[in-house]
């Protein structure tokens, strides 16, 4: 429908783009670098580069290879699928514009999977731990039912303006990749293991480790909702337990890399205060 035209200065644009991809055939197999080359077009992003690589299915040396596997969805930075490490920086690949990347390094674009999650294949990683953390903090409003009970409580504009940014978290995992306290947990399936046994082992492994800034922020979001706060105690119990708020080292990397600019460190500070109060209260209520 649209014939894209060159935007602004199309001078000094290369005819080819070199791409270096860190590939891995599956869990537990060694990673390896592979070089690709695609034709340059105006308005490209890393997604369109990967689409071309998939269609070509051969390396710069002409070697036939399977397409590079990667995850993507909306291509406009709201779904959180396409996170990867691009030229050493964790970000969404859809909003990684080729012209901008070439300004930084005209030689090549370097693509790697996130390092804090187990690689499924190539640039695809398993982020189930990230979603499991949302269960740990019970990130939902515990309504009675889905029947028609009239409108919800009135919410001051100020509260909406505080909560809306937190609610924009798209579970992309950038904050976790950048967090020094969030370490990779990889649970490999044992031969003959049932789904249930494997899930239970993963759950135990996840819950012994840091929950992550995204989940702390979601806990604060729901603790500030008039009905969501009915689970406030349970959330604070999680945040004061193993892998909770005390695991945060206050490196503040999370907030620096968040593509949605969510005030994660503000949430963590709020959570810290709430957790302290909760612990004191719990101590005296014993």
């Amino acid at each position, binding site marked *: 429908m649209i014939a894209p035209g060159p*935007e602004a200065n199309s001078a000094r644009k290369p005819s080819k783009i070199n791409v270096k991809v860190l590939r891995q055939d599956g869990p537990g197999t060694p990673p390896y670098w592979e070089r690709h080359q695609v034709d340059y077009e105006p308005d490209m992003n890393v997604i369109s580069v990967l689409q071309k690589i*998939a269609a070509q299915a051969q390396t710069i040396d002409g070697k036939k290879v399977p397409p590079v596997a990667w995850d993507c969805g909306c291509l406009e930075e709201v779904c959180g699928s396409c996170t990867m490490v691009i030229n050493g920086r964790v970000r969404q690949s859809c909003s990684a514009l080729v012209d901008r990347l070439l300004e930084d390094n005209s030689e090549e674009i370097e693509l790697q999977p996130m390092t804090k999650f187990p690689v499924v294949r190539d640039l695809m990683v398993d982020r189930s731990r990230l979603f499991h953390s949302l269960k740990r903090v019970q990130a939902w409003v515990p309504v009675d039912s889905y029947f028609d009970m009239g409108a919800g409580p009135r919410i001051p504009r100020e509260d909406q303006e505080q909560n809306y940014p937190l609610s924009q978290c798209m579970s992309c995992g950038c904050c976790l990749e950048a967090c020094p306290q969030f370490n990779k947990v990889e649970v490999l399936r044992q031969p003959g293991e049932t789904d249930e046994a494997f899930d239970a082992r993963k759950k135990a492994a996840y819950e012994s480790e840091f929950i992550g800034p995204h989940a702390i922020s979601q806990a604060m979001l729901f603790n500030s909702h008039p009905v969501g706060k009915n689970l406030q105690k349970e959330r604070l119990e999680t945040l004061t337990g193993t892998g909770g708020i005390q695991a945060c080292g206050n490196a503040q990397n999370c907030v620096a890399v968040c593509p949605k600019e969510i005030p994660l460190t503000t949430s963590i500070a709020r959570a810290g205060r709430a957790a302290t109060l909760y612990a004191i209260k719990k101590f005296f209520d014993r």
Partner: protein
Amino acid sequence: MASNRVLVVGGGLAGLSATMKLAELGIPVDLLSLTPVKRSHSVCAQGGINSVNDQTRQQGDNEWNHFDDTIYGGDFLQNQPPVKEMAYWAPKVIDLMDRLGVTFNRTPEGYIDRRRFGGTLYKRTAFAGATTGQQLLYALDEQVRRWEVEGLVKKYEFWDFLGPVLDDNGRCVGGVAQDMVSMEIRSFPADAVVVATGGCGLIYGRSTMSVFCTGSAASRCFQAGAKYGNGEFIQVHPTAIPGADKLRLMSESARGEGGRVWVPRRPNDTRPPKQIPQSERYFFLEERFPKYGNLVPRDIATREIFNICVNEGLSVDPTRMCVYLDLTHIPRHELDRKLGGILEIYEKFQGVDPRDEPMKIFPAVHYSMGGLWVDYEANGEGGLLPGSPRNQSTNIPGLYAIGECDYQYHGANRLGANSLLSCIFSGLFTGPGIVNWIKSNKAAADLPKSIFEGAVAQHQARHKKLLSTASGSGENPYVLHQELGDIMTRAATVVRYNNQLTEAYEKVSAMVERAQRCSLTDAGNWTNQNVIFTKSVQDMIPVAQCILKGALMRDECRGAHFKPDFSMPSLSATDPTERRLEAEKWCDAFEENTRKYLKSSICTWKGQEPELTYEDIDTRLLKPRPRLYGLVGAEVIEEVWKNRCGKQEQSEQARPQSKQLAGAV
């Protein structure tokens, strides 16, 4: 009901609302999705969700008006009872989403704020910044996660639905799906299967849709015998941002908040937009449609923008077609509060701040009004009968379709901010009906295993056959997809011609066979995206055929379907008497056309191509009328039409029986 289960395919707004409602009713759900459900395409919906509200009510609005706007906006191509029910449920849907914690924008007093959207004169649209779909989806995702912890929902994310399983009587008793990581193919016995798999924009190559929106799940149901309705009605959104990989949506809410569409009056005006004085700007939508202005329905806005660029040569960029969408007159803090999300998208992808510079936009494929045919059961008031197992059921018993992948709610053109409503409404409403369906049937779990094993074997054979083509010299599936997208974009978007449609249909039909000759570049059995994509391309083709055939056979203009060769002529006479005579003739032609074409096109799969038949529309509540939106120069048509309807009403009042509701359909 201990052994009963439902399989829900797709975890967008429709799939998640159905899942949580079923779980609440005590039915365990297997929820299957191509992606973690939180990443479903519903996140891309920006502008908002419609309902009548306390404020509009006091300005004369009510549920009936919302219903009327939706039908008029859809050019009367919808069966009216489901649409009526949806409009009457709309306030309840928003109340529920409010209770679930959706961060709707608030008025200073703390009420849900509203804005105006296209095709209505009321401010009905509730919104959460400009990421309303994302916020609604997250609220539902959270509830489903809650049920997952309770043990009533089991998620299968990164699974591809391969098709329904039918028993010997043709009842749907489950589905077959493939794990996209391990490539395992297995069956999911289920007492009902709910398909909530969204639109089919990928058939057009680039669109505003996410990469998952291939339409292949719906196509697999279609190829298994489900009917496909009104495929030719594809919404082309007036305002999108071009891109190499995707055409990114620029929400209608930009215009809802006061954004103005314009071009310089002089062709090839090279001045920067801000240096062009007001008097030399052509606000063509406002001038032609003073009543609705920039908020005419999408099909009309799209055609006007297309016309300005293609026929009038007034594109604002010499290298590509586009017009200005201007927000620069609105205060920055207001823009940030209400439209932040979409302005960031423009800024990030175009490198220009739309608060300072008018945006450059052009239409793009956006939504599928058509989809799987579904049934309904009306109640005495012309709405839907709650709890009826017929509601949202496809013609395959036990197979349900909801959300964008059904054909039910939007007719020939969808109004903005009605899709989020139709998705959540159909998801919630269908739950009790499914429970009643389950009660009256033998549990799928008790059926002979052979039914499921046979279905799995069939899909395994297809999979193995594809893998065996690796490194052959057949078609490249990615290139084939591009070709399909180019053909569809050229022939079946804004303006359609029969010769182009015929040619496109022949080319696409030839692809049925070509797609079977695809050669893979990955023969592996671990996270093989190559084979998953190839299957989806193969399955895009039957739906593409439905779109093209439906468009070819429909020699009229209706909503998003526009054929210049069959358009109603505009009035040319200047003499009032003659003009009135012309308007009379116009209305005669309109009535004749309604008789002939006010019908749903229904496709049935015949192995190589679809067979097309027509089905009457249930217009029991509203009589079709010309859809003019106060177009300048067409006032006399409205007058003549009103006059005719007045006479008709008088004669009907003389015979009250003729107005009875029963017996329609």
